[in-house]
């Protein structure tokens, strides 16, 4: 059949099919994007922190025994569960951000295998707040000795914001290989962070 053989109606039907297929594709992409980028709210009155974290991530609210205010993990991530958390450190009047990075480094070096600080730099958050970002890496190993897991190399970032005698630390942990790919979750997390 040649083009000359197509009726106007057939031509319209062809174009409509293409348009519907395209619309369905765009709709699917949008739906997937919406699902992936959907967030749930979290707030903590004690520290005055409010934020939105990725929907369907496993949320854990910190207790007095924990060193975090909230922690959300991507349950489906393989092999390391991508994690975003918020913590708060009380600071003395004379403390500066490098006291905080040093404190965090020492604490983590004592708790994490092969811990290494990679970089400490000043950054500006989406809302214009000044912050300090410390990136680091470590080897994450399963604590259950019956399970045979090869340690996973984890890349991580702490974003430290000094505010009213406390340091707000937003932390992003991901398998080193998917660190960049998942960083948009952390970017969105920081964009929605409110310090009241």
């Amino acid at each position, binding site marked *: 059949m040649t083009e000359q053989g197509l009726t106007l109606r057939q031509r319209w039907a062809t174009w409509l099919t293409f348009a519907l297929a395209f619309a369905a594709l765009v709709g699917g992409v949008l739906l997937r994007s919406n699902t992936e980028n959907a967030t749930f709210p979290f707030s903590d009155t004690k520290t005055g922190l409010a934020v939105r974290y990725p929907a369907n991530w*496993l949320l854990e609210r910190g207790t007095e025994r924990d060193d975090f205010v909230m922690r959300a993990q991507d349950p*489906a991530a393989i092999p390391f569960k991508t994690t975003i958390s918020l913590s708060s450190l009380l600071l003395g009047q004379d403390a500066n951000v490098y006291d905080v990075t040093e404190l965090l480094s020492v604490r983590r070096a*004592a708790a994490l295998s092969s811990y290494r600080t990679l970089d400490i730099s000043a950054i500006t958050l989406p809302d214009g707040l000044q912050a300090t970002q410390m990136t680091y890496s470590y080897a994450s190993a399963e*604590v259950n*000795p*019956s399970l045979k*897991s090869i340690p996973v190399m984890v890349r991580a970032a702490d974003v430290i914001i000094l505010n009213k005698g406390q340091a707000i630390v937003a932390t992003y942990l991901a398998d080193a290989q998917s660190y960049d790919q998942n960083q948009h979750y952390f970017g969105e997390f920081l964009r929605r962070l409110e310090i009241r």
Partner: protein
Amino acid sequence: MRRLTILLLCSALALSTLVTGRTAHAQTGFDAVNAQRATVSITQMTRTANGQPIISCVGSGTLVSASGLILTNAHIALGSTRCKTDMLVIGLTLQLDEPPVATYYADVLESNIGWDLAVLQITRSLDGRPIDRSVLALPFVEPGDSETLNLDDTLSIVGYTNSDEKSSGAAAVRRGTISNFTEEARVGNRAWIKTNAVIPGRMSGGGAYNNAGQLIGVPTIEPLPSGTEACRIVQDTNGDNRIDAKDTCIPSGGYINALRPSRLARGLVRAAQLGITTGGSNVTDALPKPKDPPAFSRLFFASGVSAAGMPTSVVTSLPSGTKSLYLFFDYANLIDGMVYELRTTIDGVPNATFSLAPTTWSGGERGLWYIGSREQVWPNGQYVFTLLVEGVRAGSAQITLGGAAQTAPTFSDILFGVAADGRPLLATGNVLPAGDTITAEFVFNNMPAGARWRQAWYYEGVQITPPTPASWSDKDGANGKKRVSAASSPGNALQPGRYRLELYMGDQLAATSDFVMAGKQVIDRVNVFDNVSFASIVTGDKPSDPGTTFNTSITRLYTTFNWNELAAGTPWTWRWSVDGNPLFESTQPWQPTVGSLFWLRIEGTGHLPDGSYTLELLVQGVSMGKATAKVGLGQLPVNTFATAAGIQLQGRVTDAETGQGIPGVMFIVLRGDVASKEFTWRMTEVDAISISDSQGQFQLNRLLPRGVSYNLIIVARGYLPISTDGLKLDDKVKSPLVLNIELNRD
């Protein structure tokens, strides 16, 4: 496909239930797999001068909690000159047929050298990082009741063996029966459980289980001093680049035939669970060590033991069918921690049932000791008992058993007390109040008139009465009771301390007993300790807040007391218990401190748990003081000692197409009231979680209680998640419950 997978999962669960239903009987019996998994290897390590780690000794242990409490021998935990210990490396049974895998370091929480028992806590991984014990979910067993055991009961002993041509070095199970129960001074009846199982020395510190699968004993043998037994040289320990006889070797010889009963371990385990330790006393000076070599003397036999641990009557032979026989002996110049041993032969043939493998000495420097038994018939024959200390022969005695019972003259059952003009003795027992006269009453039988006999009194090993041979008076009769006494000379009162009475028939020792003179007489009892009180703070040896009730927030509890007429060196015992559960006990020579106040202390790793804390003070096994203090509510939280009797859920997640294990899969068990469809991805709705390893294997980090329904979710990127509700774990389901789950790609 998703429905199919869920069906497969449900089928797997149902099948598991069916399979375990068939093996439900095994649940109540000995579970060899769980016992082996709960068995750990303990390696005592030290460092050379240049910092290199070397292995000094090896032993076994048993996990008694999921959070890493280990029950083992004290000599394995604390080390010695033979087994120097700077680090305790814990190896786990990861595969049943493979040697242990060194995984953790452990620290000693509690120990009792005399009982040769200790409780360790896993604290660090091998790279030195602290372990969060709350996330440990290690396989463990619970200590059972060793008092319910009977002769000929079957035992299963689990521990590690040396890796050689005959063994892979994996945790092994050796079976045997109970051949005897051995009594020993300070511990009393059933101080040891004897078994005919062949247990290599490497299994020392492991576990012995009854038919119900309860941990009822700890196989125990001390490594002998270097050069007296087989050992393995595995390292260049002296740094001379050669491996030869000059290098330190690891003891590997010996066979165990004795178990310490779990009864003795229970207090240590409970104290460890509560986080309570003994915090010492206000005596700081250690007793000087004896300079002379250790010695055993005055070996003799008795047909029974009194409640105070004294011989009822001395015997030189016993008839057929004898069940009760004890070897008594004096000891001097011994040091706690030395190794002693009893070897017994019958008609020249070594007999393990009535011997005692090398074990830790804990009786102090000098005194009277005994070993024997009363539950097993002693076969007829000529017995030779040989005592060894530090591998060197130190004394021997022999006795013949057999023939018919004879009606020979006997003295027996010496009873000390305060005489009161023809009336029964007052303040009877083996602790007498300080005074000028000592009186003893003894039983005699078959005594012919005119028989030669004599009494001899001793104070701290020195005879204090002149030899007084006498003829048995016709007025006393052939059978009955007789009193004898010793009095101080005018102006020289009898001193507090240790005394002894010996009664001789001719020149043959016929009866003997020791007693302690201490304290004051108060009506018909002896008052050695008084003003027993408590405090949470002691400043300058004075209690700052004396009382009997204390707030929950205290971290230490002191007990203070005065003492009366208690001579230095007199053995005394303190015993702490909480809510009636004995925790600690120690017998030691009395060392008076400066002033008139003595204190003992217990302390918690954090706050002392709420409870009723009781201190009991004893002399010669007799309670001489007791008091109780309440902390917080005055009782332990409900179910403090309840262990998690639940099901270990584990398994493997695989790709449905390839059959390969999927790493990183999150296996979530939801709280029972949260259905999988209602799950909002909050940790508060989660009961337990495991993430699969590189092989797809998973294991939940805690045991799941039985009788509860569970809802599950399994999720991994790239695969369709699956969920199921209503997994019921009833009493028929055997632990561990293994689930094999297939996931389909999305």
